[in-house]
């Protein structure tokens, strides 16, 4: 059962990690917490589900989902964060919470309150290894997430745009002085963070077969915790944080009690923060 629970935890953790990457990138570069990250995730899921229902084309649906998430992310940056940039840190925070409430209410108005199923059935095929079972969808979730993380790392470390983002994150004034377009770096960050959350939303819409306006709330909170757990601002930290959180809550539920499944995620968070206040890989 241990191995099985590890697999379950890893699949959930990968999704937390994807959303946590959005939190951590935006925090790293802007110093703000984007509490609307869960809503971006939800719009990604809706974009894919609605497109698939209309066209029946899975590839198109995935593209549309990511596009929807990116659009929401860019609009957020433009209308919720840019006007309040440089103000007291509480102000962008309130703006983010407001945007989050607005976006989920808007989704309820546009899409209706009901859960939607994913308009495509997947074969419940699964692979056996060492007594544990991994379903095809779980495997897809883990592989896609890992591939995206590697791509993100390559982008940030090897491309010019990626390096520009890293430079702005280190010191935006110095970056500006050396000729980097800071606004463009902000927009790219939001685009990347939103795309990751959008993919996470689409994967979950497939896996759980339910897309709803409030689906972003809980994953949003957990991913936020994952980002803190790993050390806010650190990209490998967000990945580790997400995986640790996913595995911790599954093992907690398995060996202690499922009545407190969510609590285990947050207990893990508190424990790490007591021992290491800046998170697993956080900078000083």
């Amino acid at each position, binding site marked *: *059962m241990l191995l*099985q*629970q590890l697999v*379950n*935890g890893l*699949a*959930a953790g990968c999704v937390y990690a994807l959303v946590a990457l959005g939190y951590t990138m935006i925090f790293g570069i802007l110093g703000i917490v984007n509490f609307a990250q869960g809503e971006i995730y939800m719009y990604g899921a809706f974009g894919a589900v609605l497109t698939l229902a209309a066209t029946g084309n899975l590839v198109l649906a995935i593209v549309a989902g990511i596009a929807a998430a990116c659009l929401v992310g860019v609009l957020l940056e433009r209308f919720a964060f840019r006007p309040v940039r440089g103000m007291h840190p509480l102000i962008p925070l309130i703006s983010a919470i407001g945007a989050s409430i607005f976006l989920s*209410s808007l989704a*309820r108005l546009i*899409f*209706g*309150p*009901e*859960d939607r*199923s994913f308009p495509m*059935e997947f074969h*419940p095929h*699964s692979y056996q290894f060492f007594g544990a*079972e991994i*379903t095809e969808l779980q495997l897809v979730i883990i592989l896609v997430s890992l591939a995206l993380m590697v791509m993100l790392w390559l982008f940030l470390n090897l491309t010019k745009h990626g390096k520009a983002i890293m430079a702005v994150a280190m010191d935006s004034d110095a970056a500006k002085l050396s000729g980097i377009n800071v606004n463009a770096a902000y927009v790219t960050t939001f685009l990347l963070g939103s795309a990751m959350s959008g993919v996470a939303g689409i994967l*979950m819409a497939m*896996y*759980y*077969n*339910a897309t*709803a306006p*409030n*689906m972003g*709330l*809980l994953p949003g909170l957990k991913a936020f915790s994952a980002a803190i757990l790993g050390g806010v601002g650190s990209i490998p930290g967000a990945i580790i944080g997400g995986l640790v959180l996913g595995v911790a*809550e*599954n093992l907690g*539920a*398995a060996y202690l009690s*499922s*009545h407190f*499944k*969510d609590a285990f995620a947050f207990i893990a968070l508190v424990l790490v923060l007591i021992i290491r206040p800046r998170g697993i890989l956080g900078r000083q």
Partner: protein
Amino acid sequence: MQRLWLLVMVAMVVLGLGLSEARAAEEIKIGAILRLSQGASDGLPAKRGVEIAVKEINAAGGINGKQLKVIFEDEKDSAPASVAAYQKLVSMDKVKVIIGPMMSGNVLAVAPLAQRDKIVIVTPNGTSPKISDAGEYVYRGCTRIDKQAASLTKYAKESLKTTKPVILYSNEPYGKGCNDLFTKCFAELGIPVISTESFMVGDRDFSAQLTKLKQKPFDLLFIPGYLQETAPAISQARRMGITAQSMGVFGDMAPKYIELAGKASEGHINCSEYDEDYNTPTNKKFKDAYYKIVKADTKEPNNAMFAAITYDMTRLVSTAIATKGGAPDQMRGYLDTVKDFDGVTGKLSFDNNGDVVKQGVYIFKVVKGKYVKVK
């Protein structure tokens, strides 16, 4: 000249006020507190049920010539919000009767106030046994959860031959209450529940709990909760290779459940308060009106049961006002004595606790993607 204008304006305002007063006097207002934002997939059908009833009543000339008007408030899935909605309806809109709230916890929060103010409240689907003792001004339109539990567990024992049930419940007051009650009911029938797990509202990943349940063999998987969680839970269970019979509470009685759970819903057993094929002219009229609304808008949630209950309750209340008068005690005089009211959820009466009395609980089974009545 200016003074003259002022005078004309004052006169118009006074006249206007007088007119609106006069128009208001031709209306009878009732209130409704329903789940219009959180849980709107249940609350909107309930609202439609009220609206269909009101439309019919008004088309037939209203209540003794006066038009019936309903003021809707949002329950917001919270007791404080329900109390605020109640206070607004009673103190500002001066209603004497309220349909709602829908959730047991919120009914119990509003009931003491209704009792104090002598306002009739009719909850369409608060199932908690505690509502029976909440006061003589509190009525309810569905069967208590303990009676639902008794008939479902009896069915499990007699027809499904269950011997080793497990429970996977929603960790909030409703699911927790179901867990306690069903465990008790199974025990009374000599069937011990072999293991129990729970999940949170909003959870979509049940693999930890299901993996744990799979450790011991069982023959019935009972999942009490709301369909937003129970449907994904059963589909995940089937994907993990769990083949045991599945069973749920009356919230699973919705086309949405079958849509979300897909093939995993096949064979699922749940109870219900409403039988669509109940063969009366009233039910046919109601069904036509309801499905017309559902078909007209793709975003409209489809749940005939929740609409049926509020439809019945609205008609009961309006008949009470029409025959006995609009004061709360006059309405009670009707509701306490009504016998075999021609409702769409059955022939309705109320017992001494204000709980609806009808033919009993229906039990449905999902066969080829459709609900089929088995009892």
